[in-house]
């Protein structure tokens, strides 16, 4: 975000809001990931300890999600940049 037209107070305020949102997003992603990997990998409730097989499954589930999540973010960034470019072109056409 372009903060150059904001004073110091507003800039710090905005940075704090962004940081809080990022923390909330991380906690939400983490919470969903635990739920999803537990749901996919742990289905035997005759034992009171996570089995080695279940633990391996959870580890792979977490790793796979992180890798595919990273890939989605990269594609998301590309799509957003493309969308911004299209919006800019439309605005330039409207000015003519």
């Amino acid at each position, binding site marked *: 975000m372009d903060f150059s037209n904001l004073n110091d107070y*507003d800039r710090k305020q905005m940075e704090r809001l962004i940081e809080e949102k990022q923390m909330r997003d991380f906690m939400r992603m983490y919470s969903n990931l635990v739920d999803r990997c537990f749901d996919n990998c742990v289905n035997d409730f005759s034992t009171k300890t996570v089995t080695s097989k279940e633990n391996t499954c959870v580890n792979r589930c977490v790793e*796979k999600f992180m890798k*595919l999540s990273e890939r*989605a*973010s990269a*594609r998301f960034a590309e*799509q957003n940049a493309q969308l911004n470019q299209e919006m800019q072109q439309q605005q330039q056409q409207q000015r003519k």
Partner: protein
Amino acid sequence: MDNETQMRMAQQEFELVTDLLHKITQRCYQKCYDKNYKTGDATTKESLCMDKCVVKYFQVNKNVNDKLQAASQAKMEQQLRAQEILEKRRRRK
């Protein structure tokens, strides 16, 4: 436009983008992942699926957004109806 309004709009836009990223990640993972977890690495099939899924989700999001621009007035009308409900209730107290 004063600073407070400008900041609120910037914050809302930031939240929109990050919420969209979260939702695309969840939905596309659901569509693309292989439940067997033979490996922690993403397979080629899963990776390419994610690529296409993100692009398609963007397209659907834009199409639905365009459709709803016209319908937003109808939704506001619906919300006002809910508000009238409450007004009647509170008059009785």
